[in-house]
């Protein structure tokens, strides 16, 4: 009996000794990568969950840039390790931990979800690994701190760019505000309201709709219709944007309330699913695949040839993240996280981006032009036709 009880103990001890052979240990400060001349990039993008379509577009944008540059950034060989960001921080934070501890990434690129970005921010800073955010829009994410850089947008920034334009369009009539009830929606409404009211606009009312669980916007649309509003400002993305715009049409709000919002409302696959229901919706965004510049035409052609699909703003954000890293590595002294972070501060303006010229501002957010886009039928399919520049 006694020996039988001891058997498993002996087995486990043996296993422990075997593990010891693997060496390592986790009781000392972990020094990041950066030992050699090649760069390890941790690409953390959603491969599952509701943000997967964004992950697909962004992976394409990233890969297209690398392909166009023979797999090198700043003249250095690049090793890319990928991890699935999933839907929220419960998956995204451990995934990011994996690329910096296990794969020894020198820099992390990607991150769609703002909560995930905020969740990994401190860990990256204490590991001295810079983060190039290629989507997450939380206003406070990039604050000029050494380690966070962003090639996408801020929720408040996009929203604010629409304020003056809408105030001008609606004249004396107030506007009804609607958004998904989570941080991005609140920031979007706050950013728009401030700019809109500063331009003399008035707000008729506001509805925050439960995030991710609302399938029927009729109760909220009816409130907007019953108010004295002359237009609606709405922040929605993904499947929510599809349902919202479709119901905006079906319940007749489209007949007398023009719809404005950040470009996520009609971007990429979302617009495809909305079809002609989205016609006439006006959005603010820092990119449209229909932007008529030589840089963009070249980009769109290359993208379509590579993937047989139209690029989205998300793809451009990742493409530009690769461009930013390229420029930084060009001027960087080495390949450690600290070297890259320091070099990102010296990259200056990106003049040949598909979105037009942009640069990092002092908070490390992109200083860029926002465009007013309107959904029109182009060759039988809806497209975001650029109407002009906002700002």
């Amino acid at each position, binding site marked *: 009996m006694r020996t039988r009880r001891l058997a498993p103990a002996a087995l486990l001890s043996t296993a422990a000794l075997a593990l010891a052979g693997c060496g390592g240990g986790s009781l000392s400060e972990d020094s990041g990568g950066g030992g050699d001349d090649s760069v390890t990039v941790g690409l953390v993008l959603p491969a599952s*969950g*509701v943000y*997967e*379509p964004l992950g*697909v577009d962004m992976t394409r944008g990233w890969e297209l840039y690398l392909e166009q540059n023979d797999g090198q950034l700043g003249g250095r060989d690049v090793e890319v390790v990928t991890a699935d960001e999933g839907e929220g921080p419960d998956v995204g934070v451990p995934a990011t931990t994996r690329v910096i501890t296990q794969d020894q990434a020198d820099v992390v690129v990607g991150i769609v979800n703002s909560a995930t970005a905020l969740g990994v921010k401190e860990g990256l800073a204490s590991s001295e690994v810079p983060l190039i955010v290629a989507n997450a829009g939380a206003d406070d994410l990039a604050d000029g701190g050494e380690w966070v850089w962003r090639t996408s947008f801020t929720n408040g920034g996009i929203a604010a760019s629409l304020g003056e334009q809408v105030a001008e369009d609606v004249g004396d009539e107030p506007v009804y505000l609607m958004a998904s*009830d989570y941080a991005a929606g609140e920031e979007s409404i706050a950013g728009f309201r401030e700019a809109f009211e500063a331009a003399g606009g008035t707000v008729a009312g506001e*509805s*925050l*709709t*439960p995030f991710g*669980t*609302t*399938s*029927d916007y*009729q*109760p*909220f649309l*009816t*409130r907007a*219709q*019953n108010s004295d509003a002359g237009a609606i400002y709405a922040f929605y993305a*993904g*499947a929510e944007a*599809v*349902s919202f715009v*479709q119901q905006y049409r*079906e*319940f*007749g709000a489209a*007949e007398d309330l023009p719809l404005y919002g950040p470009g996520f409302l009609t971007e*990429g*696959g*979302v617009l*495809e*699913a*909305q*079809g002609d229901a989205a016609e006439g919706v006006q959005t603010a965004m820092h990119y449209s695949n229909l932007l008529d510049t030589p840089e963009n035409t070249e980009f769109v052609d290359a993208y379509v040839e590579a993937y047989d699909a139209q690029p989205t703003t998300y793809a451009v954000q990742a493409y530009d993240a690769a461009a930013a890293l390229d420029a930084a590595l060009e001027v960087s002294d080495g390949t450690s996280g600290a070297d890259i972070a320091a070099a990102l501060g010296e990259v200056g303006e990106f003049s040949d981006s598909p979105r037009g010229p942009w640069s990092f501002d002092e908070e490390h957010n992109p200083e860029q032009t926002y465009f007013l886009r309107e959904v029109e039928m182009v060759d039988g399919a809806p497209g975001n036709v650029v109407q002009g520049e906002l700002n």
Partner: protein
Amino acid sequence: MGWLDANLISVLNGFALAALLFLIAVGLSLVFGTMDVLNLAHGSLSLIGAYLGVALVDEDASLGVFVLAALLAAAVGAALGAALAAMTSAINDHLRQALLTLGVALIAADVLRELFGSDPERVSAPAALAGSVDVLGRPYPVYRLSVVAVAVVIGLVLYVVLERTQAGAIVRATVADRGMVEAIGIRSQVVLLGVFGVGAALATLGGLLAGPVLGARPGLDSTVLLLALVVVVVGGLGSVRGALLGALLVGQVQTLGVSLLPGQASYLLFGAMALVLLLRPRGLLPSPYAHAGGHA
């Protein structure tokens, strides 16, 4: 525009939502009532129906095409239901049924994602029912009104079959006491297979009919499953009337409730369910035939 008019639209819309929820949830309830199987792949069946709509119904589809798609969805559902019945027949423990059917749901979700991609898709209403009619001075989608009519017809047929036919009597007897039915020489396995098939057919049919309202996208399966679970538990497991009442209640909570208490919208559904279950643990209209039905 008065307060009353606005909320009447919400009430009407609540009926449309209830109609869809009833179609989807009644199968879940019957399967639980007769087979004592908790089928967590029920939401996947609905999503399969919705994706069949994506594949078969294009923007200018005629009513005939839509009806054919609906019949096909029901047939696919019946086949899948029979397969699920066979898979679960040897497993009598609710928790292991949950493990199995949720496993199936996870697999189905990834297969659908492979086939249809991860972008949200729109399902078109048949051309004849697209557009809106004027209800109380406001445009209202014709399609949603038609859904209510379809659900009423299907609900009536179900009720008559269950309450007025011999097959229905056997099903009711199986709910009450499976052993007894076997003792009088009826093979309850056949009854159970039939019920699972019909329940699943209604779920895929409901999913397809819900397509033009809810769309088709990854994740819709679990949203629908949760709603259906709430409907059948609130209504009372194992009864058609319970599922109907549950669907009506959930439909109104999601529209009229949200319209009246927009600030609390997130909490309404589960708050209402918790309240009902604490006051009436067996649901509002538990099946008069079902045994205690409370164990898991």
